[in-house]
Each structure stands twice: as structure tokens, then as C-alpha cells.
């Protein structure tokens, strides 16, 4: 039970960050036509920033259900990697339910908390952090949908970039040590810009196509030295 309380404390700053980003995500959800309850439900089920953003865009574009499954898989595929890594950090003696719960709540932040523990992670530490931060995520989304229409346009405009700030905070720091990542980011920016401006492809399609092409190109041109067990 001590683990749970410690985890809860660690979850407070994570939850505050989540709240701000989820609010911005709520603005995107509102433009796809979701009501606050639907936004709350989506965030409670998905716990995914990029994944939810991609899904809201896809809903707006009224994609077929099969394409929705594909866009969900592609925009969340980084969790496959984390799931593999996390599987090594769960005590083989631990009950199966912990694998399901930790998997369900696998986000970049909870992942970082879990893998930093030695030799195995304490699931209750994670549950503590999740019990504060996950409600912040779901409530923030609902509030973003509710308030997005009430707040002045100026404020909504500023808040709508919060989500992209979070993305930048994830993709940019590794550029310091990895030239291939820098090249792939620049290539992604340029090709995404060109496809959005000079073709009629939907944004969901562009995301799927470019992710597969550019990541594949990266894997061929820049093999990762000495493996990549770290994510």
C-alpha cells in the first residue's frame, strides 16, 4: 500500500500536464462533433494523445470502420515497443491481471515510471500514479469539449497547440544524439506538408502512408547500432 501512495504523489505532476493537453484534445474532439460525455469515454478507454487526435480527425473525415482500425494501430504502434520492453519488467510470478491492467494504461509517462524501477516494477506504484493522472486525462478532454465553445477564440487558438507541444517534447530531445532521427523528422515534415497541400489525400491516409514509408526507409538506411531494447 505504500507503493500506491508514493505512486499517487508521482502522478500529480503527470496529471496536471495531462489535463492541459487533454483540454486541447477536447477542442479537436469538439470539431469532430463529439459531446463531452463521448470525449470523456474516448479518453477513459484510449489513454492516448496522438492516437485519439488521429481518431478524431478520422471521425471528422468519416472514414470506414476498417480504416479506423488501421489508423488506430498505426498511430499507437509505438506502444507495441513499450509493451515488449515492459514485459521484461514485470515479475514472472506476478498475477496475469497486472499485465492486463498495466497494458491497458500503457502511456509514455506510465511506461517511464515502470521501467525505471529495479529489478521489477511495483504494479501498485503504477496504479497510484494512474489513479490520479488518468481521471485528469478523461476530465480534461470533456472540459475541453465543453469550454472550447465558451472561451474566447484567442485562448482556444493558443490552447489548440498544446497537443503539438507535447509531441515536440517527445520527438525533439533524441535529435541531440541521433542524426537519423533528425533526418527522418525533417523528411516527415516536408513530405507531410507537400502531400497536404498538393494532393487531396485525407490527413489520416497521409499519416498511415508516410509512417510506413518513412519508418521503413529509416530501417533500411539507418540500422540501429547494437539493437534498441530501450525505447
Amino acid at each position, binding site marked *: 500500500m505504500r507503493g500506491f501512495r508514493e505512486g499517487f504523489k508521482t502522478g500529480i505532476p503527470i496529471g496536471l500536464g495531462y489535463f492541459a493537453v487533454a483540454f486541447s484534445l477536447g477542442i479537436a474532439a469538439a470539431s469532430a462533433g463529439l459531446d463531452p460525455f463521448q470525449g470523456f469515454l474516448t479518453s477513459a478507454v484510449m489513454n492516448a494523445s496522438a492516437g485519439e487526435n488521429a481518431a478524431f480527425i478520422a471521425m471528422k473525415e468519416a472514414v470506414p470502420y476498417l480504416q479506423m482500425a488501421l489508423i488506430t494501430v498505426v498511430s499507437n504502434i509505438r506502444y507495441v*515497443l513499450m509493451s515488449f520492453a515492459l514485459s521484461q519488467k514485470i515479475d514472472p510470478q506476478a498475477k496475469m491481471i497486472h499485465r492486463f491492467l498495466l497494458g491497458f494504461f500503457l502511456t509514455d509517462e506510465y511506461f517511464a515510471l515502470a521501467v525505471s524501477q529495479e529489478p521489477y516494477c511495483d504494479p501498485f506504484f503504477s496504479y497510484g500514479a494512474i489513479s490520479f493522472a488518468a481521471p485528469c486525462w478523461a476530465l480534461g478532454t470533456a472540459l475541453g469539449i465543453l469550454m472550447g465553445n465558451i472561451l474566447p477564440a484567442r485562448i482556444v487558438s493558443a490552447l489548440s497547440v498544446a497537443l503539438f507541444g507535447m509531441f515536440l517534447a517527445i520527438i525533439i530531445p533524441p535529435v541531440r544524439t541521433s542524426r537519423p532521427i533528425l533526418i527522418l523528422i525533417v523528411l516527415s515534415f516536408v513530405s507531410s506538408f507537400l502531400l497536404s497541400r498538393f494532393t487531396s489525400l485525407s490527413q489520416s491516409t497521409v499519416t498511415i502512408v508516410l509512417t510506413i514509408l518513412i519508418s521503413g526507409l529509416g530501417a533500411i538506411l539507418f540500422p540501429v547500432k547494437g539493437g534498441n531494447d530501450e525505447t
Partner: protein
Amino acid sequence: MKHNFYIYLLVMGISVFAIRVLPLTLIRKPIKNRFIRDFLYYVPYVTLSVMTFPAIIDATKNPYAGLFALFAGIIAAYRQMGLFKVTLICCFSVLILELFF
């Protein structure tokens, strides 16, 4: 929305749960195939980049405010300021720029 929201959510929920839980429960050994490992390694950077630009300049009222936020965010993130600070810097960049233009 032409399609049903709840069916969408069901499809999304099952897909994302499968992605997160299957490796954790079924496959407990590291992936051996080099290409797949490297491909998966690069995927998050590419997906998030594609979703960030040009979307960030389409999100703000004034596209130059979005562009400014992009550069401010890149600099802040490069200096390893952390998720919360980078996010705030992006928002304030837009707020300030749109006050003047």
C-alpha cells in the same frame, strides 16, 4: 459524423488494447528480426512528426502564430525542458503573437 460514434470507439478500443496487451502477455522474448525492430523504433518519431506539421499551422487562427509556436517548441524541447514547459511555451507563443497580428 456519418458513422456511429460507439462503433468507432469499439473498433479503436479493441485495436489499441490488442497493441498494448498482446506483446505484454503473449510474447515475452525480444523481437529478433532486425528490420522490424528498427522499423518499430523509428515509427513514433515519424508518426508524431507527420501529425505535427503542417497541422500546427492550420490549428491557429493566424498560421504564422502556429509556425512561431513550432519553432519555439522545437527550441524548448531541444533544451530538454520537459513536456509541461514545452507545452506552455507553445501556447504562450501563439497567445502573444496573435495579440499583435
